[in-house]
Structures are given as structure tokens and as C-alpha cells.
């Protein structure tokens, strides 16, 4: 009798452990899927909202090619050399002449792109003191007269490939940004004036297919 009771307790213990382990695994899969979904939605929406469809980004199959804006500079009225700009800059990271370009905006919305060839400090005051200290940007071609804003960007692309969202800067490799949870049928979808994400998970326990708004196609 004692042996039977002991075996029953052992069986009960192992069964409970196994079920709890399965529940934990399912939760991990589900968490990974939600994390991947949130990251994808946040990253891609943030990137696309800073640009205009057709001008700054476009979709091709599993890829979104874009100008990935990394900062914004207010142009100060001090320029004496045509290849230089004095700016006050703020953004996600510092300008890097090895990979960055500059989109110059005129007062009526004209756009001109230039390559950034150098960055230095500037002693000229510019704007309210609350702004960051001004700096000098050197460009590869003349600055269009009247430019008021310079947007710093790098060329990049986002891909839904090999089960994850991946980012590729220029011609470098595709780096994963999310856990590998997507099935091959996940895709960017264009419906009318809307770009969305149709997310299907590789593991059925990750949840039902899910779709999300990403950007306006206008």
C-alpha cells in the first residue's frame, strides 16, 4: 500500500513538473512572438514615419528600402564656405562621415541630398543657448542657398527573412533585430493607402496570425 502511494506521489510529481515545464515553454514562445511583434512594429513605424513613401522609402517583396534618418540639424546663418554648414544637431547618434548623407531642406520644401565628408566643432554661436553647441559639417557639393534644415541619414533596408526582422545598412550583412519567430508567409502588405505587417508565427503556440498598421502610403 505504501509502495503504491509512493508511486502515485512520484507520478503526480513528475506529471506536474512536466505540465509546468510545457506551460513555461509555451509562455516563452508566446513572449518571444510578442517581443518580436512589438519590436517590429515600433522600429519600422518609427523609421517610416520620419520619411515619405516614394521619396524616402519604398517596399519591394520582403524588403523595405529607406533613408534611415538618424538626426536633424538646424542650419545656422554663418556659412561663408559653400561646402560647409554650421548646424545645431540632435539625433539618435553622432554624425559619421563614413556612412552618412545629408538631406538639405529649403524654406519652401525643396530637397537636395549631399554626402557628409567631415564633421568638426564650430565657435560661432547659433540660436538659443538651450540648444546643443553648434558644429561644422563639410559636404561633397555646394550647399543650396537658403537651406534651413539638414537631415542626417544612412541608406538601409529592413527585411522579413530567415524568421526574423533584419536590418541591413548599405551593403553590409542583414542583422537580426528580433527573435526568430516569423514563418515564411509573414509579409509586408499594401492595402489601399496603408502599409501593414501580416505576421504569422513559425510555432503555432506563439499565437494566431496578427496584422498591424505601419505607415501611410502617400
Amino acid at each position, binding site marked *: 500500500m505504501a509502495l503504491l502511494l509512493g508511486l502515485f506521489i512520484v507520478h503526480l510529481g513528475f506529471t506536474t513538473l512536466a505540465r*509546468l515545464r510545457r506551460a513555461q515553454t509555451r509562455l516563452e514562445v508566446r513572449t518571444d512572438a510578442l517581443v518580436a511583434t512589438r519590436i517590429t512594429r515600433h522600429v519600422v513605424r518609427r523609421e517610416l*514615419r520620419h520619411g515619405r513613401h516614394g521619396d524616402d522609402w519604398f517596399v519591394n517583396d520582403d524588403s523595405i528600402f529607406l533613408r534611415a534618418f538618424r538626426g536633424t540639424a538646424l542650419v545656422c546663418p554663418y556659412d561663408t564656405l559653400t561646402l560647409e554648414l554650421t548646424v545645431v544637431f540632435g539625433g539618435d547618434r553622432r554624425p559619421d562621415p563614413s556612412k552618412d548623407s545629408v538631406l538639405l531642406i529649403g524654406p519652401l520644401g*525643396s530637397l537636395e541630398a549631399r554626402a557628409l565628408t567631415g564633421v568638426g566643432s564650430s565657435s560661432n554661436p547659433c540660436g538659443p543657448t538651450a540648444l546643443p553647441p553648434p558644429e561644422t559639417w563639410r559636404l561633397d557639393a555646394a550647399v543650396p542657398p537658403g537651406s534651413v534644415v539638414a537631415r542626417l541619414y544612412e541608406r538601409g533596408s529592413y527585411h522579413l527573412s530567415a524568421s526574423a526582422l533584419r536590418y541591413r545598412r548599405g551593403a553590409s550583412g542583414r542583422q537580426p533585430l528580433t527573435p526568430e519567430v516569423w514563418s515564411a508567409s509573414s509579409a509586408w502588405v499594401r492595402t489601399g493607402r496603408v502599409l501593414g505587417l501580416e505576421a504569422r508565427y513559425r510555432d503555432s503556440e506563439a499565437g494566431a496570425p496578427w496584422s498591424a498598421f505601419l505607415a501611410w502610403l502617400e
Partner: protein
Amino acid sequence: MLAFVILVMLGLFALTHGVLVASLAELAGSRAAVRELEVSAAAEGALQATLTTPPGPWMDSVVAWDARTVSHGPAGRTETFGIMRRLGPESWLIEGLAQMHSRAPARTARMAWSIDPLTRVTSLQGIVSVGPGALASIPGTVDTSDPTAVVAPMQAGDCDAWLDALNAHYLAHEVPAVATLPDSASPPGLGLLEFADALAAAPVAVAGSGTPAPTEVLGVCLTDEPWGWGDPVRPWRPCGALLPLRAASGDLLVSGGAGQGVLIVDGELTLAAGARYYGLVLSSGALRLEAGSVFEGMALAQGGVYVAEGATLRGSACWAARVLAAQRPALGRFVPLRSVGRVGPL
């Protein structure tokens, strides 16, 4: 047996703890996502509210300006700021910023355009700018000799705010009587303010024909009278300072009388004998000055210009700048730059 039970209990405890930690992490992630959505929406709301802020003369004297509001949403207290930063005479960076619980703020911005009277006037290439191919027939008198002269009925001091800049501009750039508008497809606008939007911005419309005359009641000027276009020849009277914006959705005939301000006509504008107008005219049709009429100011007339013998057209940048400045609240609203979209990150 006891050891086995203890081991099972430890295993259960470890697994339960793992599940709990994973659940809490997921809960924190969900909350963060909700907060991110809420502050993004609040920042967007602050941006839109600032973009639709009625413009005013104070805009000329600021480099940066912000308005702070506090709201309470499902995720907590949110502070929002709408920030206007002047980048150039007509260029603005409008920013919406929202912050929750002292965490990193969400920011969104757009570049916008808002009319600057001086810049708009000095950008006009001629006293009358006409559409490509439109007829310019000028048997009458056209005076382009001094667009910054302050002559009666304009009072000394009426042009002081712009006089130095206008003098500097017209010393370097001679202004012809007639110039050609660059865009042939659409009626003339003012910078990025399109003709239709300028027409819609007018608080009072006129139609057909009429004679402008000031309307006073008990010493007060009635500003909403359709044909009350100020009192240019008696500037000391109650309506003397009224520089109204009037619009007509069709041809307009001014039969005598005197008026001042900004006149927007979706059709042909005719000043008949005895009519006098001082200010700025935008017309999708032709501007016709018949014998005995006087126009002082500047005009954009898509359909051409006709100045009959005995009519007088005197170019006056002072009148144009003065009436545009007076209509800043109606015409100076922010126009987001369509080619740029949202600007960021900041």
C-alpha cells in the same frame, strides 16, 4: 521519499518562479508599449494643436515658443509641449513633445511655412504679375518709379516697419510694371498658401458689383460689412485703420468708392471710373482698371492686366506689405511642407 518530495517541490518552485518572471516581463513590455503609444499620440496631438494655432504679430518677435499642457490618460499623467521654432522668415519647425513620469519623451515635428509680409512682397517680380501668355495692355499711367514712397493717403509711419528692408531690396532689384508668374497651371497663391485656401480664409465675401464705403455706427467701424473696405482717404476716422480681407467667388466690379486691404477674386476684377483701391489684389482672372480709376499697391492677376487711358496704377510695396501684415491672422496659418513629411529624430 522525503528527499524526492523536496526535489519535486524545488522543481515546481523553480518552474513557477520562471513562469512568474516571464509573465511579469511580458506585463512590463505590454505596459511599456501602451505608454509608448500614449505618449506618441500625445506628441502628435500637441503637434497638430500647434500647427493649427492662430498666427499673430507676436510670431515675428520670437525665435522659439512653447505651450505646455497636462493631461491624465489610462497610463497616467502626460505632459505635452507644442514648440514653434523659427528657422527663417517664413520657415518654422513645429514640434510636439510628450512625456510621462519623467521617462524619455516622445517627439514628433513637421516643417511648416507661414507668410511673412516682407518676404512675400519682395518675392513679387513685378507690380502686376500675370499668368504666362496673359495679355498686358497698358495705355494708362503706370508708376513703378518708387515702390517704397509713402504718399497720401498713406500716413507717415505706416510703412516704417518694412521701409528699410524694402528700400534695400528695391535699390538692388528694379521692379517692372508687369512680370510673368512662374506657374501657369494654377491661380496665383501667396507662397505656399494656395489661391483656394486664401479665398477660403476670407471671413467676409463680396459678389457681383458694389461701391466700397466705410460703415460707422456710434463712432465704431463695422468691420463685417461686405463692402466696408476701410476708409483710406480719411485715415483718422474709425474705419481708417481697417485693412480688411475680402474675397469674391466670381467676377467683381467696383463702381466708384475707395477701399484698402487684401482683395481675392476668383474671376475678373474691374475697377470702374472713380474707384480707388489700395493694397494687394489676387485674381484668377484679369485685373481691369477703367478710365478714372486708381490702384495703388501690387497685384497677381492670372488673366492679365488692362490699364485704360486715364486710369492710374502706382506700384506700392508699402501698401502691399502693410495690408498683408494686417491680415497675418487670416493668411498666416501654418502650412506643413508636403515634400518633407515628419522630421526626426530630433
